[in-house]
């Protein structure tokens, strides 16, 4: 049995402590329903546990493996949901985004959450809101060159954050 395999209850506890919040975050983003998201996380750990001796840390991270399982669980739950009459929670229609797009989007969003406020702020203002550097610089009370420099270091930090969460750039 490879070391690090998910074969004891304690392994599952540790895996849960390390990854449940992220798994739940993605499940919520793609299922848009807290009950289904909880079901998805529980089912993911159960499947991981059943296949625990097949997990090999030499091949990939536990996080990547859990996300691969969750992806399948979300597909199954999505199918089950579309097979029965839909009751939208709080009137919000669940996301119809294709799942792999949703997973990619979630990873980029999670990476953006992980970088510093300063870096995220300039990326949001200049890239997503399309505001000129000079205007953002005035608002932040810094020279324009600082905004430019933060954009550069922000992208570098984002790359590191993406690698941390297992995205292969």
């Amino acid at each position: 049995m490879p070391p690090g395999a998910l074969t004891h209850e304690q392994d599952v506890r540790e895996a849960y402590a390390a990854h449940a919040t992220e798994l739940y975050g993605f499940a919520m983003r793609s299922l848009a329903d807290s009950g289904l998201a909880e079901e998805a996380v529980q089912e993911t750990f159960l499947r991981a546990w059943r296949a625990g001796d097949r997990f090999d840390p030499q091949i990939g991270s536990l996080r990547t493996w859990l996300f691969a399982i969750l992806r399948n669980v979300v597909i199954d739950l999505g199918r089950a949901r579309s097979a029965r009459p839909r009751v939208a929670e709080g009137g919000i229609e669940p996301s119809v985004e294709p799942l792999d797009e949703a997973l990619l989007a979630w990873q980029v969003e999670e990476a953006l959450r992980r970088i510093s406020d300063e870096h995220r702020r300039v990326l949001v203002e200049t890239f997503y809101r399309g505001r000129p550097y000079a205007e953002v610089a005035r608002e932040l009370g810094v020279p324009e060159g600082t905004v430019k420099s933060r954009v550069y270091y922000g992208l570098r930090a984002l790359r590191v954050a993406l690698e941390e969460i297992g995205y292969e750039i």
Partner: protein
Amino acid sequence: MRSEACYEWRESLGAYALGQLPREERAGLEAHLDGCPDCRAELELLAPVARLLPKADPERLGAAPAPPAALSDRVIAAIAADRRATRRRKLRLGLAFSGATAAIAAAVLAIFVLPVGDSGPPATRVSFESLPPKMKVGAKLEPREFGTEIHIYVKGAPAGALCRVFVVAEDGSRLSAGSFRYRWSDDYPTLTTALKLSRTEAIGLRVGNRTFLAPVRASST
């Protein structure tokens, strides 16, 4: 080639990768990139990140929702239940196999297989008295780290009846152990509660508008 010029240009690479660099600066940077493999390599690190940015929804960058605290216990309970179900299947398989072969094989297997089923923590069996005629209810309670796991056996309830199970603590307080729908008598739902078996005074079952209670004496098996 790393030079003073690189440091001047380097910080423009982010804006360049995002297509935000003004035209007049762009020409200068591109001329520098032509002659500087270091800066080209740096750009190659940033460009794929820049291409990913449009995938994200900037409205979703607030704090991510956290799973409810109780989910952790439910996950562990589901895994514990799965482990025991697997063990029971293996046990049954072992005995069925031995039954199909010689009696000696059965005896040998029993020696090796049976202790596996007995190696868990002590379970407490409970039977419900004063039930309506034709109805039988029994339960097996097993101590777990998260609380207690309950296997309940019901026979003779109306088909489809909603059954709610609760436990009574030593101070008289009640805690839910979940619910299930009765289907047929050979159905043993596995339920869980956070209350420790050692602190459990009684177990209750509510079927429709009737409640049945059975005392729990921990450690008697």
